[in-house]
């Protein structure tokens, strides 16, 4: 029969007690608890008794029972600490090569860490100057359409704002913004363009922008009120005491009701002026424009709410759901969902379309942090590897320390401290590197300008120090463990007994990891670069060659065209609403015969020259007719093939003459163009319409034939100045526009390219160190082999083969892994892309391996060629 176990208190609780309790108190305490356990067992049963025991053990964790931690007592001797520093510095100075490899590697990798710490800290500080920072929320839209993924927008409709104002209780304050307030302000002396926002009256109650003069409460209350920023006021009036002055905007007179300080750099949105929303409201009402308050007019309006402290977000959300449900009723298929987004997530958020001001996707931040971490880890591995490899030289010291009474934990501490010391030394250098790479990083994104500065403050310096400690711990942990385990008797009696090669597999693993990293980075860079080139040279279905797009900025296309036509370098001119294929879209609703089947269609308004100038292929029907002077209702449209598919309009020829309703107007299809890429390559081709509405023109497209671009540009600018002396001439070649559309990719190439460079240098340094170490320890063996007749080539091969096999393993892992990552993750969402070729996969690998071979051969050849007499002669 099995003996029934005696009921006992939980073992782990006993151990915990034994661990923390002072030894002189322990026995008594344990006895007492055991006695109570016995009593509780009889009274309450085993489970409760054990529970009480655990609680008691935790309750006894008090100042007087806890023994002081051991390392503190050993740290109390400043002499020992001084000695640690001294030995650390001596060993640093003694092994210059290894110290340099370690410090340089850590320094350049940590600089990326510093950069990211500062960057994220600055992002975190966005908008925190608002007094209501924690309580401000933005209302955002999610657009649903059957058969398509829902799209999230940072914007919402003005109607949403009005509905919230009217029917959502418990909101402290709210503001509705519209970003289309780009106007020229005119005084008696000057006329200047400004960019601003329409804002409803409580703007300054929601946001804490500082006013220099004027009344914050009333500034945006009356129609035709304008609040100028300090800079705008100075530009327009050359002074800032301008409250009460009048400015002319088009046909209207506006009053300046307040002057405010410029929005600080860490405000997510920027503006030069604010106009009172009610101005625009009244105008739209007078013009009976229904679109202004339409539920789907959600492209350029923003609603911010201040919620009271005690309110439940769920209640507000329920209110928003109620509103959207009521409004969606009128629409059959499309619907909008309203959501709340806290202000502190506006800058660092997931990707929303139609952002106002600055934002930076969290996804990208995590990718950057991940990449920086692996690079820093790689540098830590160098330290780990080299320290253990050099153990031979340090182990005697450790042996002596142990003999004179150092405990394992003290030795451990010593080596961890040494690593942290080196990390701090590296921190100094990495700060210099950080200063060097900072301008480069800032120039990657034009959006960073005057928003992100990467200026570390004292708190951030504390984070830097924290990073150094973490890096030191990571790098030093394994060597410290190794040294603390050394048996003093063995090392002092016979050093050769030290099992130095015991950890050889770990070290090989670390080197392999570094090379996997390097190879992956370089492959990723070449794949992304190829993708970028592919996107730039992609056949969009029309030509972009030698086309210069001029932003009309509100000027008459007819006048400007007349002015430009006379120039010799301009061979052809067309007008359009916008530049296609660079990611911008305009859309309108479209219906065919079924009144319930409405969707949105992207469109561009063009004149009769546009299709020819861009060499679009008209596969059926005709082009628009030349514009006449008389005004006429828009009645014709040219669509692409995809539109025919969507509404089952038959073949291109069959479709001609059929009638579509676009944006409420009936239009006849007069032509069909071949499908072309109207958006970036991240998006699939959709149905698309060319319309012929001269009121919508915003661009002139010039076909340029010029031998000297700068001369031509000067001539164009001179012509522009004649028409519009106020606005600066804004023109860009189509190719430049497309390049700009993929600027995120260029940024990615630069960042990953830089990281690849770091990873490769760190790995190569580390490898060099390991090769130096291996060859040094094997000098005698090599010499003897040579004496016995080994050839130089044989020796070279003998020394190198271990490393080369590591490189081969690394490439075998890195190539498929990176291929998979790029194919399935990075470019998975790209609708049209270049296939990943053999060249991208192997060119980088080849490069990395050649650098590595160079490092290996530089050392192995030296040893293999050395005269054995020199090394053996001293024995």
């Amino acid at each position: 029969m099995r003996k029934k176990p005696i009921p006992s208190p939980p073992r782990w609780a006993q151990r915990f007690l034994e661990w923390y309790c002072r030894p002189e108190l322990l026995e008594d305490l344990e006895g007492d608890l055991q006695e109570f356990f016995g009593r509780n067992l009889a009274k309450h049963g085993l489970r409760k008794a054990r529970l009480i025991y655990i609680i008691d053990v935790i309750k006894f964790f008090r100042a007087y029972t806890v023994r002081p931690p051991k390392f503190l007592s050993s740290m109390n001797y400043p002499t020992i600490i001084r000695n640690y520093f001294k030995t650390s510095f001596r060993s640093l100075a003694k092994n210059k090569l290894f110290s340099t490899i370690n410090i340089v590697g850590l320094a350049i990798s940590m600089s990326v860490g510093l950069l990211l710490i500062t960057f994220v800290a600055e992002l975190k500080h966005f908008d925190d100057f608002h007094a209501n920072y924690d309580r401000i929320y933005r209302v955002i839209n999610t657009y649903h359409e059957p058969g398509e993924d829902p799209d999230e927008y940072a914007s919402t409709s003005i109607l949403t704002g009005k509905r919230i104002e009217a029917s959502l209780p418990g909101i402290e304050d709210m503001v509705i913004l519209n970003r289309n307030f780009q106007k020229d302000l005119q005084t008696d002396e000057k006329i200047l363009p400004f960019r601003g926002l329409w804002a409803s009256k409580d703007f300054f109650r929601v946001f804490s922008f500082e006013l220099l003069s004027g009344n914050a409460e009333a500034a945006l209350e009356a129609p035709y009120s304008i609040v100028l920023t300090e800079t705008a006021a100075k530009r327009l009036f050359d002074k800032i005491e301008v409250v009460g002055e009048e400015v002319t905007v088009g046909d209207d007179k506006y009053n300046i009701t307040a002057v405010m300080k410029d929005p600080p750099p860490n405000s997510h949105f920027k503006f030069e002026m604010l106009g009172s929303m009610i101005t625009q409201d009244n105008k739209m009402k007078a013009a009976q424009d229904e679109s202004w308050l339409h539920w789907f007019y959600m492209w350029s309006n923003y609603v911010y709410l201040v919620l009271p402290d005690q309110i439940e977000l769920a209640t507000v959300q329920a209110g928003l759901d109620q509103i959207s449900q009521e409004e969606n009723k009128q629409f059959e298929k499309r619907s909008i969902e309203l959501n709340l987004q806290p202000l502190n997530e506006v800058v660092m958020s997931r990707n929303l379309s139609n952002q106002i001001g600055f934002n930076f996707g969290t996804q990208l931040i995590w990718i950057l942090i991940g990449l920086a971490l692996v690079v820093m880890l790689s540098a830590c591995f160098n330290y780990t590897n080299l320290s253990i490899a050099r153990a031979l030289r340090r182990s005697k010291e450790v042996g002596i320390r142990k003999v004179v009474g150092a405990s394992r934990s003290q030795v451990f501490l010593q080596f961890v401290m040494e690593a942290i010391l080196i990390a701090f030394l590296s921190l100094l250098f990495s700060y210099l590197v950080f200063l060097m790479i900072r301008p480069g990083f800032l120039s990657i994104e034009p959006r960073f300008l005057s928003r992100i500065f990467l200026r570390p403050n004292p708190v951030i310096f504390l984070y830097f120090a924290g990073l150094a400690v973490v890096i030191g711990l990571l790098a030093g942990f394994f060597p410290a463990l190794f040294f603390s385990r050394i048996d003093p008797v063995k090392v002092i009696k016979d050093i050769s007994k030290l099992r130095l090669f015991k950890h050889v597999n770990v070290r090989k693993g670390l080197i392999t990891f570094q090379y996997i990293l390097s190879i992956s980075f370089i492959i990723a860079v070449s794949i992304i670069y190829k993708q970028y080139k592919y996107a730039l040279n992609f056949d969009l279905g029309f030509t972009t060659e030698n086309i210069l797009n001029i932003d009309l900025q509100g000027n008459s296309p007819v006048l400007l065209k007349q002015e430009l036509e006379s120039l010799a370098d301009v061979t052809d001119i067309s007008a359009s609403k916008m530049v296609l294929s660079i990611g911008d879209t305009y859309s309108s609703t479209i219906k065919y015969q079924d009144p319930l089947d409405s969707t949105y269609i992207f469109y561009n308004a063009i004149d009769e020259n546009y299709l020819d100038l861009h060499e679009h292929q008209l596969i059926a029907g005709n082009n628009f007719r030349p514009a006449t002077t008389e005004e006429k209702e828009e009645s014709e449209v040219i669509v692409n093939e995809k539109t025919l598919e969507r509404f089952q309009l038959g073949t291109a020829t069959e479709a001609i003459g059929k009638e579509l309703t676009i944006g409420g107007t009936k239009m006849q299809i007069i032509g069909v163009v071949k499908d072309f890429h109207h958006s970036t390559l991240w998006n699939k081709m959709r149905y698309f319409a060319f319309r012929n509405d001269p009121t919508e023109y915003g661009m002139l497209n010039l076909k340029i034939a010029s031998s000297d671009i700068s001369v031509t540009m000067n001539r164009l600018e001179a012509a522009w100045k004649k028409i519009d002396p106020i606005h600066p001439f804004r023109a860009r070649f189509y190719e430049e526009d497309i390049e700009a559309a993929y600027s995120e990719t260029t940024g990615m190439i630069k960042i990953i390219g830089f990281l690849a460079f770091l990873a490769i240098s760190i790995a190569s340094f580390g490898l060099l160190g390991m090769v130096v170490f291996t060859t040094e320890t094997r000098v005698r063996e090599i010499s003897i082999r040579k004496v016995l007749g080994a050839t130089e080539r044989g020796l070279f091969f003998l020394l190198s083969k271990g490393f080369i096999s590591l490189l081969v393993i690394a490439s075998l892992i890195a190539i498929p892994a990176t291929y998979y990552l790029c194919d399935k993750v990075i470019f998975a969402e790209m609708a049209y892309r270049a296939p990943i070729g053999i060249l991208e996969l192997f060119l980088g690998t080849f490069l990395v391996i050649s650098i590595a071979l160079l490092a290996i051969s530089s050392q192995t050849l030296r040893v293999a060629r050395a005269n054995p007499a020199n090394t053996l002669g001293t024995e």
Partner: protein
Amino acid sequence: MKGTNLGEFEELVLLTIAALTTEAYSVAICDHLTAHTGRAVKLGMVHAVLNRLETKGFLKSSLGEPTKERGGRRKRFYELSTAGKTALVRAKSLRDQLWSVIPEFVFKGMI
């Protein structure tokens, strides 16, 4: 001098130890106090006070024999040191003195 004055609970513990004579160890003290004061005296409190009184020099302690109900661990028996005794006597005489000057009618019928 710091530590010469006794707190109420300290005094109770000292008195209990005096009463228990040779059987004064933590659990017994705890039980005795619970029985006499009627309040639930926690082991943790008693322990802390014993520890404090010993560092103040009011108590001496010695380890006894291992017992079964303590899982083979020894008890720590406490006894009053001379300082402890003096402190108790002083506290008592202080009280007596104060009691003696209270006019009889104040507590008339209560004692």
